[in-house]
C-alpha cells in the first residue's frame, strides 16, 4: 500500500461539480461506438505522430534507466558479500547517482511531452465538439433536453481533462515501469518473471471485481451529488420564498435526504476502493513470497547470487505502487472512454445543410405560404398559414396563449424546420439561403435572456465581432442602455453574467436589443421580449425595442396590446390559424376577435372623466397619453 492511494481515496467525489442528469425518455444525443472512437482518436493523433513517438521513447528510456537501481543495489550487496573492499563501491555509486539524475531528467521531459500530446488533443477535441454543438439544430438540442448538451460540455470534458492531466502521466509511467520491470526480471532469470506472474490471477480477479461494482456506484454517486447541489441551489437561491411561505422545514428535510444519500453512496465507493486494495494486498504477498522462494531455490542451486535474489525481491517490492496505481486508474480510463464516446458522438452528427444557392435577400420582406407545423408527432400547432410582410413593415402577432404565435416566430426565424409550406426572405426561399443565411437575415429575440459571462463589451461583440468601442456605445445609446452600462463598476469592461456582476432582467433585455442593433439584420422578430420585466420595466423596454426596430422589417409577438396598436398591421392567430389580418383601426372597427381583446384591454384603462381616444380618429397614440 502506498501513500498515493491513501490520499486518493479521500476524494472519490472530485467530479462533484457534475450536473444532475434529469433526462427521462428523451431523444438523447448520440454516443459513438468503440470503432468510431478509435477512428476519431486516430485522426486526432495523426498530426502528432512525431510527438507521440518522442514521448514514448523518452518515457521508455527513463523507466529503463530507473530500473538499473535495483541491480546496482544488488551489485553492492554482492560486492559486500565478496568482501571486495571500499574502492569497488565507487563505480556502482557513481552509476546510481547518474541513474537518479537521468531518470529525473527523463521524467521531466517525458512528462512535458505526454502533457503536450494529451492537452493538444484535448483542446482539439473540445474545440471540435463546441463547434459542432453550437451549430446543432436547436430542435435536436431541445429534443434531447438542454441538460444533455450541458452535461457533455461540463462533466464529460472535465472528466477527460482530469484523465489527461492526472491519470495519463501516472498511468503511462506505471504501465511502462511494470512492463520493463518484468523484462528486467526475465533478464535476471526467467524463473523470477514466472514467480512475479503468480500474482496476476488475483490481480485480474480484483480488477474485475472492482470495475463491475465501481461504475454503477460512482455513477449513482455523481447523480446523488448532482441532486444535492441542485437542491442546494433550489433552496438557497429561493431562500426568500422559502421564508415567505415558511417552507424551511420542508427544504431542510429535502436537503438532509439528498445530503445523506450522497454521503451513503460516497461511503459505498470507499468500501469498494478499500476492498479492492485489500484484495491487491493478497496479490502482493503471493508475488513477494514466490519471488523470495524462487530466489532461495536459485541461490541454493547456484544459478543466482544472493545479490540477484535481493535485486529480484526489491524489484517486486518496488512494483507494489505502480501495479496498484495502474489497476486503480483502469477505472478512470473506462470513465474517460465513456465521456470520449459521448463527445465524439456529437462531433460526428451531420452539419447543417449548406445553402443551395448563392442568392441573398434583396430586401426585408417575408413571404409565408401554406405553412403548417407540428412538434414531433404531436398535433399540428400551425395550419396553412399565409402571411406576407413588406420590407420595413412592423407586424404584431396577437393571440391567446397556445395560439401558435411563438411557433410561427421560431419557424420564420429558422429555429424550426416547418412540417410543410414555404418561407421566403427578401424574395429568396429559405432553403436557398441555408440556416446560416437565414440567421444572417433574421434576428430573433426571445423571452429567454442570457447574459454571456465575461466583459459586457464581449457580450455585445458576439453580435458583431469587428465592432469597436464607439459602435458598441452607439448601439447601447440607441436602446437607452448606455447610461447604466457606463455606470457599471468598470463600464463596458465590467465582467457580467455567471460569476460576474449581476444584471437585472430589464438590463439583460436591454443588452439583447443592443445586440440586435449591432447585428443589424433586415428582419427582426421579437417574442415576448418585454413580457417579464415588471410593469415599469416593460415600458422602458418597449421604447427601446421601438428604437431598435427602426428601419427593419419587424414581427412582434405582442402580449401587451399597446405593442399591437402601434404596429403597422396586426395579425391575429387563433388555434394555429390566421383569423384576422389588418391595421389596428380596421380590426377594432371590424368587431372581431381583436376588437374584443382591445375592448377588454381598454376597459381596464377607461376612466369616467374622459373617453378613451379612438386611434382611428386621433393622431395621438392611444397607448401613451402621457408620453
Amino acid at each position, binding site marked *: 500500500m502506498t501513500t498515493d492511494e491513501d490520499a486518493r481515496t479521500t476524494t472519490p467525489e472530485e467530479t462533484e461539480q457534475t450536473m444532475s442528469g434529469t433526462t427521462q425518455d428523451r431523444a438523447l444525443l448520440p454516443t459513438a461506438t468503440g470503432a468510431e472512437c478509435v477512428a476519431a482518436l486516430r485522426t486526432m493523433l495523426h498530426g502528432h505522430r512525431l510527438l507521440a513517438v518522442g514521448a514514448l521513447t523518452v518515457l521508455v528510456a527513463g523507466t529503463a534507466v530507473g530500473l538499473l537501481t535495483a541491480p*546496482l543495489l544488488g551489485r553492492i550487496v554482492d560486492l559486500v558479500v565478496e568482501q571486495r573492499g571500499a574502492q569497488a563501491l565507487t563505480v556502482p555509486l557513481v552509476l546510481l547517482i547518474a541513474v537518479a539524475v537521468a531518470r529525473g531528467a527523463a521524467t521531466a521531459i517525458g512528462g512535458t511531452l505526454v502533457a503536450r500530446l494529451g492537452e493538444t488533443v484535448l483542446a482539439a477535441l473540445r474545440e471540435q465538439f463546441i463547434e459542432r454543438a453550437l451549430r446543432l439544430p436547436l430542435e435536436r*438540442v431541445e429534443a434531447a433536453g438542454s441538460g444533455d448538451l450541458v452535461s457533455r460540455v461540463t462533466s464529460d470534458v472535465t472528466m477527460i481533462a482530469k484523465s489527461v492531466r492526472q491519470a495519463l502521466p501516472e498511468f503511462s509511467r506505471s504501465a511502462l515501469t511494470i512492463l520493463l520491470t518484468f523484462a528486467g526480471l526475465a533478464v535476471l532469470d526467467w524463473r523470477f518473471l514466472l514467480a512475479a506472474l503468480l500474482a496476476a490471477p488475483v490481480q485480474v480477479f480484483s480488477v474485475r471485481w472492482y470495475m463491475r461494482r465501481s461504475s454503477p456506484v460512482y455513477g449513482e454517486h455523481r447523480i446523488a451529488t448532482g441532486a444535492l447541489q441542485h437542491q442546494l441551489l433550489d433552496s438557497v437561491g429561493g431562500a426568500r420564498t422559502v421564508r415567505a411561505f415558511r417552507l424551511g422545514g420542508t427544504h431542510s428535510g429535502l436537503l438532509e435526504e439528498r445530503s445523506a444519500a450522497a454521503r451513503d453512496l460516497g461511503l459505498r465507493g470507499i468500501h469498494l476502493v478499500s476492498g479492492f486494495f485489500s484484495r491487491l494486498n493478497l496479490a502482493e504477498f503471493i508475488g513477494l513470497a514466490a519471488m523470495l522462494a524462487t530466489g532461495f531455490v536459485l541461490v541454493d542451486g547456484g544459478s543466482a547470487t544472493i545479490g540477484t535474489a535481493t535485486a529480484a525481491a526489491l524489484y517486486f517490492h518496488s512494483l507494489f505502487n505502480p501495479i496498484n496505481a495502474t489497476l486503480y486508474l483502469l477505472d478512470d480510463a473506462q470513465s474517460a472512454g465513456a465521456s470520449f464516446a459521448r463527445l465524439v458522438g456529437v462531433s460526428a452528427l451531420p452539419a447543417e445543410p449548406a445553402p443551395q444557392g448563392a442568392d441573398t435577400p434583396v430586401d426585408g420582406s417575408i413571404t409565408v405560404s401554406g405553412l403548417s407545423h407540428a412538434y414531433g408527432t404531436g398535433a399540428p400547432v400551425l395550419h396553412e398559414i399565409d402571411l406576407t410582410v413588406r420590407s420595413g413593415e412592423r407586424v404584431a402577432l396577437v393571440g391567446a*396563449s397556445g395560439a401558435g404565435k411563438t411557433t410561427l416566430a421560431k419557424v420564420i426565424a429558422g429555429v424550426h424546420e416547418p412540417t410543410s409550406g414555404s418561407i421566403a426572405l427578401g424574395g429568396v426561399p429559405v432553403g436557398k439561403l441555408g440556416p446560416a443565411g437565414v440567421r444572417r437575415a433574421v434576428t430573433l429575440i426571445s423571452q429567454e435572456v442570457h447574459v454571456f459571462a465575461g466583459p459586457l463589451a464581449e457580450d455585445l461583440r458576439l453580435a458583431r465581432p469587428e465592432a469597436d468601442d464607439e459602435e458598441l456605445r452607439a448601439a447601447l445609446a440607441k436602446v437607452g442602455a448606455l447610461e447604466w452600462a457606463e455606470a457599471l463598476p468598470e463600464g463596458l469592461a465590467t465582467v457580467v453574467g455567471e460569476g460576474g456582476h449581476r444584471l437585472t432582467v430589464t438590463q439583460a433585455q436591454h443588452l439583447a436589443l443592443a445586440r440586435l442593433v449591432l447585428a443589424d439584420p433586415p428582419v427582426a422578430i421579437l417574442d415576448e421580449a418585454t413580457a417579464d420585466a415588471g410593469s415599469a420595466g416593460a415600458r422602458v423596454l418597449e421604447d427601446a425595442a421601438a428604437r431598435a426596430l427602426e428601419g427593419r422589417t419587424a414581427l412582434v409577438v405582442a402580449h401587451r396590446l399597446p405593442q399591437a396598436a402601434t404596429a403597422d398591421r396586426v395579425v391575429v392567430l387563433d388555434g394555429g390559424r390566421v383569423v384576422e389580418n389588418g391595421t389596428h383601426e380596421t380590426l377594432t372597427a371590424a368587431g372581431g376577435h381583436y376588437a374584443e381583446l382591445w375592448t377588454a384591454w381598454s376597459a381596464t384603462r377607461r376612466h369616467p372623466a374622459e373617453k378613451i381616444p379612438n386611434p382611428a380618429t386621433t393622431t395621438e397614440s392611444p397607448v401613451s397619453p*402621457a408620453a
Partner: protein
Amino acid sequence: MPTAVPTGAVVLGRAIRGQRPRVIAASLLGMTHQGCEALVPVVIGVIIDSAVATGSSASLLRWLVVLAALFLVLSTCYRTSARITEGAGEQAAHRLRLELATRVLDPRGGAETNRLPGALTSIATNDARRVGSVATAISYGVSAVAALVISAVALLRISVPLGLLVLLGIPPLLWLGHRISRPLERRSETEQERAAHASGVAADLVAGLRVLKGMGAESAAVARYRTTSQDSLAAALRAARSRAGHEGAVLALTGVFIAVIGLVGAYLAMDGSISVGELVAAVGLAQFLLGPFQLLTYVNAEIAQGRASARRIAEVLASPVTVEGGDAVPADAAAGHLALRGVSLGALRGVDLDLPAGGLTGIVTRDPAAAADLLLCLAREKDPAEGTVELDGVPLTGLDPDALRRAVLVAHHDADLFESTLLDNVRSGADGDTTAVESALAASAADDVARLLPDGVDTLLAERGRSLSGGQRQRVALARALAADRSVLVLHDPTTAVDTVTESRIAHRLREVRRGRTTVLVTTSPALLAVTDRVVVLEDGAVRADGHHNELLAADETYRAAVLA
C-alpha cells in the same frame, strides 16, 4: 444555531470532536497498518539473511508464514481504518451541510446577503467536504507518525549511524523538494485555473445557445471559444511543464539519497558492523520512509485547506441576521390591519399608511426601489430605519419573524418556484386545506396552465419553474400565494406577463377569493387596480395621493400617466 459566534477554529474543532470515536479507532488501526508496512522490507531482509544466504528451508518457511501474517494484519487494518476514517469525513461534511442549510434558511435571514447562491452552494459542498477531510486526514497523520517511529526504531537497531543518516536526511530532502516545488505549485495552480476557464466558457455558450441562434452568432461564439481554448491550452502546458519539472527534480533527489544510503550501508556491512540482510532492510526502509513523510506533507496541506474552508463556513454561520427576532406570536386569526407610521428605509421617506383589515388596497409607485423597500418592510426582511410597521396594533419588531409570516405573506414579483409538481408548488404554503388550493388554482388561472401541461397539475416543473413561460410561472406563483390563505397578502406585480383578458379575469376572481381578508396589490396594472377598494400613490418615498382608482384616473394627471402608459 450555536450561541457563541463560531470562528473557523471552532467549526473545525467541532467537526473533529464530533467524530472522535471514529478518529481514534481509525488512528489505532492505521498505526498498525503502517507499522506492518514498515516491517515488510525488514522481513525481506531477514529472509535474505536467514534463509537465502544460509539455505535453511525451515527458516524460509517460518519467515514466509510470518510475512503472510504480516500481510493479513496490514490488509485488514488498512481496509477497516480506511472505511472508518473516510466515514468520519463524510459524516462531518454531512453535518456541516445541514448546519449551513439551517442557517441560510433561518427566518431571520442574513446568510445570503452579498452571497450568490452558487457561492453558498459551493461552501456547503466543497468547503464542507474539505473540513470533513481534516477529520479523515488526522488518522492518516497519526498512522504516518507511527510508521516513522517504527521505521526509526528498526533502523536504529540495525545501525545507529545509518539510522540517524536516514532519519536526519529525509526532512531536508523533503524540504528541498518542497522549496523546488512551491513556486512551481503556485504557478501551476493559477495556470490550472486558467486552463479550467475553457470549460466554463463552453458551458456558458451552450447555456445561451438559444440566444446565440437567435442572432446567428454561432461563428463568433466558436471563434471566441477557440481563442479561450488555445489560451487554456497554453496555460495547461505551462502548468504541465512545471509539474513535470518538479516530479523529475524530486525523483532525482530521492535517487541520489538512496544511493548515499546504499553506499554508507555498504561500508558498514564491509567492516562487519551490519549484516547483508540489514543492509537490504536499511535500503528498503529508506525507500519506504519517503511514503509516511509524503503522507505527512499531504495531511499538512489538507489541514491548511480545511482551515481556510472552515473559516468560510464560519463566516456564513456567523453572518448577522437582517431582522432581530421578537417573541410575540400574532393571534391565529389575525384581523389583519397593517399600519405604517413614519416609515423610512432606503427610498421610503416617512410613509404613513393604513391598510384596513379585510380591505383590498392598491399601491402605485413609479419608483421600483420604493416598491422594493416597502415590500421588504412588510415582509420583515428588513426593519425600517425609522418608524414602525404594526400588525393589529403590535409593532412587527416585537413579533417572531416566522410566526409573523403565518399571518402575513409578501409574494414578490420574482418569487421562485421549486422543482416539484405544479400542485405541490401551489399547496406548499397551504396548511392542508384542499378547497383553498382548488379555488386558488381557478382564481389565478393556473388551472389553464395545468391543462396545457402533459401531466396536468402533476407535471414536474424544472428548477425555478424554467419549464414554464413567464406568464405561466406568474400564474402558478400567484396560485401558491392565494392557496397559502394568509390573513394579510401582499402581491407585487403578479400579472405582468399575463395577457390582458386573463389578467382582468384574474383581477375579479382575486377579489372574490380574498374577500374578508386584507390584500395589498403593489402594481401599476389598471386591470388589477380597478378591482381595489382604494389606491395609495407613493411618490418620492411618501404618500402623495389616496382615493379610488376611477377618481384618481379622473383627477390626477400623473396617476394617469403612471397607470395608463
